[in-house]
């Protein structure tokens, strides 16, 4: 169950549970949440409940609504968000935190088409073309390594002497369909694998076979005529530590 805590100048004056599909906020007495504030419009904002989401939207109010200091049009509420209307603040408190995603299991529920009319937000422009691509969940922040390879010899796509920064999740070298190697960027480091080709992939002259190989700074990679020198930059964390140290010496 989520609730809203109403405050004025830091003093809590009321609290409201969100227990309906739609909760309107404004100066008018017909609203679920009535706030007596001359800066508010009669119908100022509302909160729509869709399963586990509470979506707050400004109802084109004269003086506008802000969410955590930024102008609001429509936003999914997160625990501890502050909705600012006139001189008043509404703090959203929910036991549900977005980070819970790893603990939740897939559930079946009814689609929105049957209730579209009730919840269709005012002024909400339904996507004209079906939106099929919904972005991915926030990935956990991982500290990825920084590395590069220098081309010492022989590769069509890259010039000899060129340094290629390994900033994507994978980088391949060689010719697809003939002779190819891949370097994957992972939290624990860069991992080299032989993808295809009759010539073995070698590290400092040793055949790695079909097993993935965790690259170390300065290692020489060979695949047919291709020769790459791998360079691993020190972790950024260390770099930050060293700047901290330099501050302390002042």
């Amino acid at each position, binding site marked *: 169950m989520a609730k809203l805590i109403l405050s004025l100048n830091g003093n809590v004056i009321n609290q409201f549970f969100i227990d309906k599909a739609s909760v309107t906020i404004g100066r008018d007495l017909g609203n679920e949440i009535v706030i007596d504030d001359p800066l508010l419009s009669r119908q100022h904002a509302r909160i729509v409940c869709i399963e586990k989401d509470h*979506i707050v939207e400004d109802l084109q109010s004269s003086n506008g609504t802000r969410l955590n200091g930024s102008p609001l049009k*429509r936003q999914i509420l997160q625990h501890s968000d502050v909705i600012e209307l006139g001189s008043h603040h509404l703090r959203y408190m929910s036991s549900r935190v977005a980070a819970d*995603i790893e603990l939740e299991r*897939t559930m079946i529920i009814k689609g929105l088409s049957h209730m579209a009319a009730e*919840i269709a937000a005012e002024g*909400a422009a*339904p*996507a004209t073309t079906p939106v099929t691509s919904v972005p991915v969940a*926030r990935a*956990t922040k991982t500290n990825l390594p920084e590395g590069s390879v220098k081309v010492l010899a022989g590769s069509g796509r890259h010039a000899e002497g060129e340094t290629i920064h390994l900033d994507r999740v994978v980088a391949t070298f060689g010719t697809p369909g003939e002779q190819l190697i891949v370097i994957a960027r992972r939290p624990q480091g860069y991992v080299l694998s032989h993808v295809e080709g009759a010539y073995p992939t070698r590290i400092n002259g040793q055949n790695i076979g079909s097993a993935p190989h965790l690259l170390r700074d300065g290692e020489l990679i060979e695949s047919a005529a291709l020769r790459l020198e791998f360079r691993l930059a020190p972790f950024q964390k260390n770099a930050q530590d060293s700047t901290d140290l330099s501050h302390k010496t002042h």
Partner: protein
Amino acid sequence: MNNEPFHLELACLTESGRVRARNEDTTAVDSDYGIAVVADGMGGHRSGEVASQMAVDFSLKRLRSKIIRLRDGILNQTPIQFANQIVGETNQKIHLAASQQTGCGGMGTTLALAIFHGQKVALAHVGDSRIYRLRAGKLQLLTRDDSLLCDQVEHGLIAAEDAADSHNRNMVTQALGIQASVTVHLQEEDLLVGDVYLLCTDGLSDLVEESDLELIVDALKTNLPMAASHLVQLANDNGGYDNITVALARICEPVVEPEPIVEPQGWLARLLAWLSPKSAEK
């Protein structure tokens, strides 16, 4: 046996991920019949596994018998028609098992299915498992999720770029086995040499950006098992919150049987062959 105009390469991989103890996903590919399928089961106890396994086993068995008759020219149905029929039957079978078997009440599963036949592929799906296609280096999502999140975005309730903040991430609006009937999403696409089809459960598509899916499939398409393992590995590196499943299919040039080299017979033929400019180059 396979007289298709294209040669098909297939690979699939499923893992439980880094958080869940059990794997409720199931996947299979069949290169003889040109089928790729993934399913993401849900339900209490072990019923999620039961549902996804049933969906894959039953639909594969039924599809094979249809495809045999299609190839023999004695079936008056197109792949898209029998895909619709078979997914509907699969739904009924799981729905019935859910009501009869102990511990299976309420079980369900998503299903994403591709049938490659001739110049075309028939695609069918229910739930939030997805089908993408890589063509000329660009990855495109071909399916629309049966999910509340997708509904919310399409109704204009939330912006697509805010969807990652939603708490409604794992809510599907349809799955096999839940109700007596189901609406199967169907489509047919023309095949081109070089296309790669990617079928996956939300354990992959929720955790890996589309640009990274595109990069990995494009970079490693000449070794599909390795592409599959790199995709699963990245989903794990990004958290591995859910079971991760991927099936890949690459459309290749037909394998041309090399013409048998027949040595010319008789002394005159051998002499003429020896005199011809082609053999002189040897």
